[in-house]
């Protein structure tokens, strides 16, 4: 007979933190991760807003905490059935688990910039995404970024836009844009950097300081207006069109580099697992939670929990806090239900 575990689907920050906390609570978490390493999107990032902290350091700490935890990398879920509150989970590597609870930490996908064709991603060479810029900061290896003199950041790409079916705010792009704007200005001090925003949503701790720093120390120019079209002039430079809504005049601008702040979307392929567990999506396409307050870590299916950006766009601190809360919720659930895990241990 299989030993009963708690299955954590997804090995990003939410999954790692949940697993670590469950372990500390004396339970037996297993992380199932489809890629070959833990870390999720965090592993792609160089520095983190608001204070440009080293992403690598945070990731290292999180990975260290997970050293003793059972992990299945390069593994996908092939089937889940539920019987008397026990989940029978089959994996792509042929293994199977019996789990008392499942925590979905499946995270998000970055919006695919080519879906917003008018921004010219994949068409014009000098249009890049926030993730690609972060990769550049990490590796300094990107031919497209070559001493740019004029750089633009487009906020809300794939967010707050019914024309791509994403009407929600992705929450992290405003701060990321300003952080990256400062960083690229640091890299190319002679450049002019413009941020095209609709609203600067600087809600978190330290975000307003970041805004101030961007204005004061880095001379980042914020233009209130959404970019509508990108084209190329004869010299091959980008020409963007937007309205400067504060002046109320349309503006055209030539740029050397345009960075698209792609928002968060539901992770692709998550429907497959949702169907196995009979869990619905909310109006934004993310996983539906039981309610908006007390049930934030719960789904409508008993024994299936959620943490992190799989339920809505979230910042890293939010995600970590939610992961910890999820661990407690799982603990309470198992205890209240007198699950086998508990009878074995307590």
């Amino acid at each position, binding site marked *: 007979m299989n030993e009963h575990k708690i299955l954590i689907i997804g090995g990003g920050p939410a999954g790692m933190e949940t697993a670590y906390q469950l372990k500390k609570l004396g339970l037996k978490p297993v992380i199932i991760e489809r890629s070959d390493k833990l870390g999720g999107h965090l592993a792609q990032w160089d520095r983190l807003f608001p204070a440009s902290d080293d992403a690598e350091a945070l990731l290292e700490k999180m990975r260290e905490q997970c050293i003793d935890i059972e992990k299945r990398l390069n593994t996908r879920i092939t089937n889940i059935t539920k019987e008397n509150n026990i989940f029978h989970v089959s994996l792509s590597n042929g293994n199977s688990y019996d789990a008392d609870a499942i925590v979905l930490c499946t995270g998000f996908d970055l919006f695919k910039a080519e*879906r917003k*064709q*008018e921004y*010219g991603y994949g*068409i*014009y060479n000098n249009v890049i995404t926030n993730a690609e810029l972060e990769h550049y900061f990490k590796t300094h290896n990107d031919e497209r970024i070559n001493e740019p003199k004029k750089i633009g950041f487009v906020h809300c790409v794939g967010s707050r836009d*019914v*024309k*791509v*079916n994403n009407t929600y705010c992705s929450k992290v792009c405003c701060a990321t844009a300003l952080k990256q704007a400062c960083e690229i200005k640091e890299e190319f001090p002679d450049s002019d950097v413009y941020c095209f925003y609709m609203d600067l949503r600087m809600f978190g701790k330290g975000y307003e300081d970041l805004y101030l720093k961007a204005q004061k120390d880095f001379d980042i120019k914020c233009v209130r207006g959404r970019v509508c*079209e*990108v*084209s190329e002039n004869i010299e091959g430079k980008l020409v963007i069109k937007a309205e400067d809504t504060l002046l109320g005049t349309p503006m055209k601008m030539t740029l050397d580099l345009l960075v698209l702040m792609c928002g968060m979307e539901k992770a692709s392929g998550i429907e497959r697992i949702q169907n196995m567990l009979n869990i619905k999506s909310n109006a934004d396409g993310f996983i539906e939670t039981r309610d908006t307050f007390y049930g934030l870590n719960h789904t409508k299916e008993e024994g299936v929990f959620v943490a992190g950006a799989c339920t809505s766009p979230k910042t890293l601190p939010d995600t970590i806090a939610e992961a910890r809360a999820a661990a407690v919720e799982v603990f309470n659930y198992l205890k209240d239900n007198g699950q086998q895990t508990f009878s074995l241990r307590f």
Partner: protein
Amino acid sequence: MRPIFDPFVLPFVLGMTFVLLYCIIGMTRIIFQLPKEDRRKFVRSLITPKTLWKDIKELFNDCLFHVKIWKRKPLLGYMHSSIAFGWFMIIILGHMESVAFSPFKDMQLPLMEKMASNLYLPIFFRFFAIEDASLKAQIYCFLMDFFLLMIISGIVIAVVKKKKPKNVGLKRVTKFGIREDLVRISLWTIFPLRFLAEASIAGITGGSFLTEFIGNKLIFGGSYNETLSLILWWLYSIDLAIFMFVLPFTRYMHIPAEALLILLRNAGLKTTEPRKGYAVAEIYSCPSCGLCIDVCPMSEVKDNYKNTAVYFIRNIRKRKRRRDVKNMTEKCLMCGKCIEVCPLGIESLDIKMAQRAKTYYKIKSDFSYLESCKDTESQSRQDEKSLKTVYFAGCMSHLTPKITRSMKSIFEAAKENYEFIDADGSICCGRPMMLTGKVKEAKTLIAKNTELIKKSGANRLVLSCPICYKVFKEEYQLDGIEILHHTQYINELIETERLNIDRSDKRYAYHDPCELGRAFGVYDEPRNIIDNIGLLTQGKSDKDMSVCCGGSIGSLTITLEERDEITKNSLKDITVNKPDEIVTACPLCLKTFARLSPINVKDIAEIVNENINVS
């Protein structure tokens, strides 16, 4: 000896007189409502042998045989032609028979009486004349019975269609009021009553296999009951009278109206006023068959089937409900599918456009700013004479840089001497303005664009947007400049081997944009291009049956939610054979589909560009 008159013929005679007078007056009114020039055209068409021959051919094909319905739905085709053609034959043969075997032939009757009797005699011939034993009479009897049977078989299908539309391949049929029910029941019962009346007397006056052998022998036991027979003849006559008295106020008005419509259409007339002249002929020609309901993309959205052409025409015919007519006019996507399936080819979009042109806008457009607009780019061009082709991408294509980018590299690969005249934006082509009903204002835009394009000195104009294409083809006078959509242009490049394409094994589905496909029949060029690149998969409804993408600017009032439903439905149709990618040829279709499509959507220029053989 049979009597030569019986009072039961009176209801029929009155009904017939009424309907004839009504039609003559109506027809005269329509002809007088036509603009003078149109009226002249109409008269001219009637004395031109070529159009006259066309008239006759179409009268037979469309009014009697219903060739168009046969092509779409054979069963419905049979239903219609059996009733229409059968009835026609019974009338013709009845007249021939009554001339050949007239019981009054040898009588000395006053001329008036003779003429009057000719009105009813062919219809009630069996009552008045006794069949003689000649072969000729036998043949007449047989033919009359044969066509009667044909009509009755058609009516049986009609009853089935009414009860279970699915059996004849229809999802939805038109809903009718009491008047229409009455006329339908009267029509359905005319021929069964005729059969019974003729059968009841067949033992005396004669008949053939249906009336005499089946009817008289089996139903009436071979005997003749005078009272019963007379009652049946009365019922038959009254039924005919009911049909004829109600006919002008029901959908069956299409029977006489269609004939007029064919003549007017062949004279080259079009709708100019939404409630006058040609439009009236079209409105009365609508048989309310409802074939347009199932095909209207709007029907996919709950309750919106009420906006389909058949209901629009019905409302406009009722002369009230102006508000409904206005709303329906403005909601329509103008995709033209209803016209494509209409067995009568009623151009309801022209009526809608004429109706839109009636909208009163208090604020008038003012394009005086265009006067100062100069074509700066063409001024800077160096050798103006050698320019062959201008490329006009159109407003929407500026939101789809993949199209303009691909076109640029295709021009370059084909070594075309071209200029992208609206690279930096342009004046709108005028089609969207036309669609709002502001024709005069649209003409201002058209005039300005014409001026700019002519100044370029090119002899070809390549367009990327079918919306532009339509208005350029129909409204622009660019004498000498060939107008091509890029599908046509690229196809020509491939056929003349100016562009070499590599093959891939990708499977493409092609969506026909309404204003390229249905409007101009550009079906083969894009398919030929795709055949050169990969494999073309069939959609559920292709070519002239292609479903609007939902993004049409033809509709002024449709909401985004409603558009989405249409888009999803259209996508379902296109992807039925699991293509790898969807290909279309319109920036608007592209953007609309890309929002909701589970697979990649590309413009045809894009897939060509991806597969250009550079070596």
